[in-house]
């Protein structure tokens, strides 16, 4: 695998790497369209995350990839081969289930070896490969146990070993961390990425947890109402969301409604009812003058201070209505004079140096010319 398995393979690399290809994939249940004409490309050795809230169709999409759901229309290509019509047991695809779905009546060893046994692999080779897989997830000492004798984290490792042992061309992960405690989740995510990179597995995961998607994925897609809203690297999608939905879904944001009132070559101005002064936006916006747009302002881009900022634009006056220490940063909710409540994160480091504003204190919020994203949809 010449491409190597480094993180950060971006989607810009062209079609040569297209390993999994979904062509206008659609799934209809009776009257409802669960997945609507989805086109997606997943590159070789990439960890791709499909992100969406429950009921957005992401699980249906995953089940179509695994072969558990038939496809209403469209096609799925894996490594150049059309697998749309193949039964689940004929696909070179394995899945780690959200509930792990370990066979409760079998030992860990038998669970991991199950897939190889179906393939008719020789007994001693099964044993060898099972222990190799268990070694990989550090579960070989538990080979003789039954699933109910393991903790949640251990069960997840076994489920991972079971889905990797057949060396699938595509690994599917269904909400991989949702059954784990929050404390061990983060480390497990990093560990999982390490294992997948080490093996060079192409992986498609489905999650509702944007943090999980950002931590693990090389690229991600945001899905809502059966359609893909945006595809890109986590950085791209976070920094340049293409819709209000994505801006709100990936991280939290403050959204303002406004109208473009000035359109100059180097900047534009957007009037908003929520602010006394218009937004002054530095970078290029293609929307025409007079158009109604949304402005997304991330909480961490907002500076909270007691003193009036020196800049002419991009600030507002308000009162702290709520404040919470989150550890590395403090979360402020500030009611602007217009009545609009904005959220701001201030690094604790900065706050400790001065006397931090508290609840009911009058403050000024401000932001830079390049720190907002203008959205037309």
């Amino acid at each position, binding site marked *: 695998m010449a491409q190597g398995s480094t993180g950060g393979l971006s989607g810009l690399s062209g079609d040569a790497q297209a390993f999994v290809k979904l062509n206008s994939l659609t799934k209809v249940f009776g009257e409802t369209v669960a997945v609507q004409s989805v086109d997606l490309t997943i590159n070789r050795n990439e960890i791709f995350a499909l992100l969406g809230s429950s009921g957005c169709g992401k699980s249906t999409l995953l089940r179509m990839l*695994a*072969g*558990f759901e038939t496809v209403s229309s469209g096609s799925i290509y894996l490594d150049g081969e059309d697998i749309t019509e193949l*039964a*689940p*047991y004929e696909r070179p*695809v*394995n*899945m780690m*289930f959200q*509930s792990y*779905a*370990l*066979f*409760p*009546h079998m030992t860990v060893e038998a669970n991991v070896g*199950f*897939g190889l046994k*179906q*393939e008719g692999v020789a007994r001693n080779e099964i044993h060898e490969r099972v222990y190799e897989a268990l070694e990989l997830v550090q579960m070989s000492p538990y080979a*003789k*146990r*039954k699933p109910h*004798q393991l903790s949640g984290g251990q069960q997840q490792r076994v489920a991972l070993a*079971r*889905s990797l042992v*057949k060396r699938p061309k595509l690994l599917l992960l269904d909400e991989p961390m949702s059954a784990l405690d929050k404390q061990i989740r983060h480390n497990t995510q990093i560990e999982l990425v390490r294992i997948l990179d080490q093996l060079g597995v192409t992986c498609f995961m489905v999650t509702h947890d944007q943090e999980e998607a950002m931590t693990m994925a090389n690229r991600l897609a945001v899905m809502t109402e059966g359609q893909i809203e945006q595809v890109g690297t986590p950085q791209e999608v976070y920094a340049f969301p293409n819709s209000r939905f994505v801006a709100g879904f990936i991280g939290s944001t403050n959204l303002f409604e406004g109208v473009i009132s000035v359109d100059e070559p180097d900047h534009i101005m957007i009037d908003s009812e929520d602010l006394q002064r218009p937004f002054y936006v530095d970078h290029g916006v293609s929307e025409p003058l007079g158009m109604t747009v949304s402005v997304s302002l991330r909480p961490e881009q907002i500076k909270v201070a007691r003193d009036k900022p020196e800049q002419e634009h991009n600030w507002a006056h308000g009162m702290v209505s709520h404040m919470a220490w989150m550890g590395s940063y403090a979360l402020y909710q500030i009611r602007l004079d217009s009545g609009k409540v904005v959220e701001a994160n201030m690094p604790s480091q900065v706050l400790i140096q001065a006397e931090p504003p508290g609840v009911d204190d009058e403050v000024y919020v401000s932001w830079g010319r390049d720190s907002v994203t203008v959205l037309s949809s």
Partner: protein
Amino acid sequence: MIPARVRRGAAQAWSVMPPYLWLVLFLLVPFVLVFKISLADLKFGIPPYTPLTSIKDEAIQLTVHLRGYALLFTDSLYISTYISSLKMAAVTTFWCILIGYPMAYYIARSPDSVRNVLLLAVILPFWTSLLLRVYAWVGILRSDGLLNGALMAMGIIDAPLEIYRTDWAVYIGLVYAYLPFFILPAYANLVKLDTRLLDAAYDLGARPWRAFVSVTLPMSMPGIIAGAMLVFIPAVGEYVIPELLGGADTLMMGRIMWTEFFTNADWPMASAVTVIMVLLLLVPMIVFQVNQKHRYEHERGGA
């Protein structure tokens, strides 16, 4: 004041009382009574057996008669009846599994709305008395009955089949009567089988049949065993069905007991037959239970 711990212990003891009380009242006490009669001898009068203890010359005499048991183990009729009963119950259980399991599986996999109708259909026969239903089989299986009439009309057979008053008729009646007792526990087990486990099996390359054999079947074993016991145990002592459908040479415990009690009025003999039958069923069950418990504890403790 009673310490809280003692009170809680007492409450716990009380909460497990009802099943034990039930077992003592309706299983242990009757069994002891029957066991007592089985150790008596025949006597004319009421009751028609000798007392176990008597007071004579200021001494309590305990008289144990083993006539019933002696006869049981010497008269080949009883021994072959035991064997025949166990065999008929085993064959009935086998057919109930063979017919009932696919039915239970089908019901468990049906959509909710259909499932309740199908379940009702399984339970529906219970709304009619067993006697009536078995009697209906007489009408079906007789030489000039429905079955033979239909088969002859279709030209499949020339002469009527001899089913009524044979072991075949008893098997048909037993399987018919006990099938729901197998289907219900098997269904209860199959319906809660996590279908994601089957998905996992398919995902790992198992074809549907392999997935059934390696996942569904082993996981539904408790349901199969429960259903099999519910069929086997009452079938061994069944009286009505062999009496109505069986021939004179159909040997089953229920009929022997009936004959001893009501025809011969030999209560001690009938009791001895009963005691041995209960032991014959109870001992293997206890061994099985203890074995299961050991295995379970071994798995838990083996961690």
